[in-house]
């Protein structure tokens, strides 16, 4: 399958004022196939936004290359830029004092559309699709947060780019606005054949929308697989321990990587078996702690649980193994998968 985004040996080192170096991204290799919704996941400071900004040409890599539909971002910047539209996190992206129509015309011209007729037709099409046509002449600052985000997405799509980068597109949106944006992301990929790269902390959304996910931690890639494959891979490792009554938090902490929830008066601990433990060791640990174990059963993990598990494992690894990216096998799953 044709790769829309090809990232090779990409690294970014930021130098602090005191002279210390920060490895924001280390030797990243990644390919994103055309027409996919690709989830780029990681905790704050994992290196996602730096990678996205390097893909947009806003940050220059220390080493490595980014190619968008075959165009090298450094050597063929103009052509590469024509391949993408982006909505970046934490900023307005559009002029709130201008109306939606003015914003789309401005950004269309800025991104190289010189034909007024074509630009106006495209702006109308986008505003109608996003249900903003009736309010196209209202200043964006008067819109709800969801509508403002729609205008930012429309501005990113004004040139109809084949690749769309959305950094936290649902951040701060209410449930309804978030659903609208999610529906639109799906349509962009499925109906329009666009490649959508999505960064989000809403892992349930990533699980639903993304064909493939990459998980980053401390500037390194921990996993890069089709979403279903990643879920299947961890299915064998996840268990649920059902315990009678309420278990004190300090006792739950003895089950590293497990999350507690309450269900019908019972405590359910869910998580992956790690640290060389087996399911029998878990049962033994519960017995030694004096817990009343009702059952242990395999559980289907969700993306959030896998994410937490992978990031925790990466953080526990000695720095050297994390830096060298040597695959480290931990109870069935490897550190870099």
């Amino acid at each position, binding site marked *: 399958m044709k790769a829309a985004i090809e990232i090779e040996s990409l690294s970014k080192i930021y130098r602090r004022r005191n002279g210390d170096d920060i490895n924001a991204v280390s030797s990243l290799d990644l390919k994103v196939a055309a027409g996919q919704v690709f989830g780029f996941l990681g905790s704050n400071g994992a290196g996602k936004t730096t990678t996205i*900004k390097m893909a947009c040409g806003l940050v220059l890599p220390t080493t490595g290359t980014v190619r968008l539909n075959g165009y090298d971002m450094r050597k063929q910047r*103009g052509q590469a830029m024509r391949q993408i539209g*982006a909505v970046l996190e934490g*900023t307005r*992206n559009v*002029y709130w004092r201008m109306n939606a129509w003015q914003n789309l015309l401005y950004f269309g011209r800025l991104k*190289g559309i010189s034909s007024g007729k074509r630009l106006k037709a495209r702006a109308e099409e986008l505003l109608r699709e996003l249900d903003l046509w009736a309010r196209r002449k209202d200043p964006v600052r008067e819109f709800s947060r969801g509508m403002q985000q729609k205008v930012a997405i429309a501005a990113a799509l004004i040139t109809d780019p084949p690749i769309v980068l959305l950094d936290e597109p649902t951040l701060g949106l209410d449930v309804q606005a978030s659903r609208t944006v999610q529906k639109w992301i799906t349509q962009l990929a499925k109906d329009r054949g666009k490649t959508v790269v999505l960064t989000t902390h809403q892992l349930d959304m990533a699980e639903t929308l993304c064909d493939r996910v990459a998980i980053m931690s401390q500037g390194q890639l921990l996993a890069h697989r089709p979403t279903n494959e990643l879920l299947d891979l961890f299915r064998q490792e996840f268990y649920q321990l059902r315990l009678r009554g309420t278990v004190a938090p300090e006792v739950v902490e003895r089950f590293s990587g497990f999350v507690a929830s309450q269900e019908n008066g019972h405590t359910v601990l869910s998580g992956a078996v790690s640290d060389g433990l087996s399911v029998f060791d878990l049962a033994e640990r519960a017995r030694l702690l004096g817990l009343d174990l009702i059952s242990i059963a395999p559980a289907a993990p969700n993306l959030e649980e896998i994410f937490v598990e992978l990031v925790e494992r990466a953080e526990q690894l000695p720095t050297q193994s994390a830096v060298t990216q040597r695959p480290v096998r931990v109870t069935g799953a490897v550190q870099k998968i």
Partner: protein
Amino acid sequence: MAMTGTILLNETYKRFILLWSYKFNVLTEMFMIGFLFIGISFFISGGKPDPELMASALLGYLIWFFAVSAISDMSWGIREETQTGTLEQMCMSPLPSGLLQAGRSVSSLIWSSTMVILVGGILMILLGVRIPVRLSALPVFALTLAGLYGFAFILGGATLLFKQVQPLANLLQNMLLFLNGSFLTVEQMPSWLETVARTLPTTQGIVVLRRVVLEGASLAAVWQDGSLVWLTAHAAAYLLVGWFVFLWCEQEARRRGVLGQY
């Protein structure tokens, strides 16, 4: 060529829409600019302003307004766009960044010219001051502005890298008002201050403009006495250095990852 025109118009279109949304602020600024000139002139002349001296001062003052506008646009304007994230969107344009910067400067120039014509016109009517319109002043005016924008590009570049350059920009704006020869000609300054004043971007432009506009000197005459030659060299140096500094700072901001960071 068509794209260049589109970009220049696009930036102007954006600027006028945004300024229209700040109508009250613009009106207040116009009033402040006019009031400041009247106030300073009355103080300097001991309450009895001489229309002839006022014409000379007003010419310098209006050039200073161009400087205020260019400096604000490159410092406050870029910082504002960094905070809102629109600067990053601009930097994602496939068009050359130099062209976008040129578009930004032209729109700033169109806006400040509009303000200068309005404020200058009102002041001339109110104070009975007459500044003749001479076509021969156009090249001198263009050279003065070229040097000024070169100077503003240096500040714009610094804003991209360091963000907090507003206090420096304010200091420079005020220095220019008192040192560019608007109210006190550079010849009247102490020699060390005259040297400093002459290196500033608008001083030599104002000197030559006064000779051409108010004294009716020809371009040949100001070329022969060396003042236009010095202005040309001065403006070219500022423009070239400013342009390269801006482009270098933009590249450096991308390298440091601070283009969109505030």
